[in-house]
C-alpha cells in the first residue's frame, strides 16, 4: 500500500520569507501523481500544485514550487515570498494512475503559520 509521510507537524515563516515543507512517499508504482493541498480554517481543500511522476521538470505555480526527487521518493513544497494568506494546513497527497479513478492518499499534514 502507498503511504505518504510529512515529518513536520508545524512550521512557521516570516512574512515575505521562504519556507519548505517536506514530504516523502512509498510506492512500487512507476506512474502516479503527487499533490500539495492547502486547507485553511474554512475547511475547503484547495489544490496548490500537482506533479506527474513521469515529468522530470519540477512543477511551479507562481510563488509555489516543488522539488521532486523520484528516486528518493521525495516531494517538497517551497513557498516563496510568504503571505499571511498562506497560513493553513498543507497536505501532501499521492494518487496512482489507473484506468478509471483512484482516490488520494494523504499525509498527516503540516500546519504553517505566517508571522507578520
Amino acid at each position: 500500500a502507498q503511504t505518504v509521510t510529512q515529518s513536520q507537524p508545524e512550521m512557521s515563516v516570516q512574512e515575505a520569507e521562504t519556507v519548505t515543507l517536506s514530504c516523502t512517499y512509498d510506492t512500487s508504482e512507476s506512474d502516479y501523481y503527487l499533490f500539495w493541498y492547502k486547507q485553511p480554517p474554512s475547511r475547503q481543500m484547495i489544490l496548490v500544485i500537482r506533479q506527474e511522476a513521469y515529468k522530470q521538470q519540477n512543477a511551479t505555480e507562481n510563488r509555489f514550487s516543488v522539488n521532486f526527487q523520484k528516486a528518493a521518493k521525495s516531494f517538497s513544497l517551497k513557498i516563496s515570498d510568504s503571505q499571511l494568506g498562506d497560513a493553513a494546513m498543507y497536505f501532501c497527497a499521492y494518487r496512482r494512475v489507473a484506468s478509471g479513478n483512484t482516490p488520494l492518499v494523504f499525509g498527516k499534514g503540516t500546519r504553517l503559520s505566517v508571522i507578520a
Partner: protein
Amino acid sequence: SAVISQKPSRDICQRGTSLTIQCQVDSQVTMMFWYRQQPGQSLTLIATANQGSEATYESGFVIDKFPISRPNLTFSTLTVSNLSPEDSSIYLCSVTNRPMNTEAFFGQGTRLTVV
C-alpha cells in the same frame, strides 16, 4: 474543473441519531469518494461510490455505519448512523476531473459534532 455543493456545512447531532450528507456535482462523474477528517488529523478514505453499484468500503468502515447512495452520476449521499461522540469529524466528498482524472476536487466539508 468540477464544482461540488456539499450540505449541510455543519450540524450538531444527538448520540444515537443519524446524519445524512449530500454532495451535488455540476458535471457527471463516474466515482465519488467520501473522506473523514477527525479533529486535527488527515483525511481518511471511507468509501468509493460508483453509480449503479454498491459502494466499496475501506478497512475499518462498514456499510451499516456509513451507508452510501449514488442514484445518478451527479449526486451522492453519505449517512453516518447511530452517532457517537467518536464520529465528530469533518466529512468531505471528492471527485476527479474528467477525462484525464489528474486532479481531485472537494466539497466544502461537513463539520459534525455529536453530543
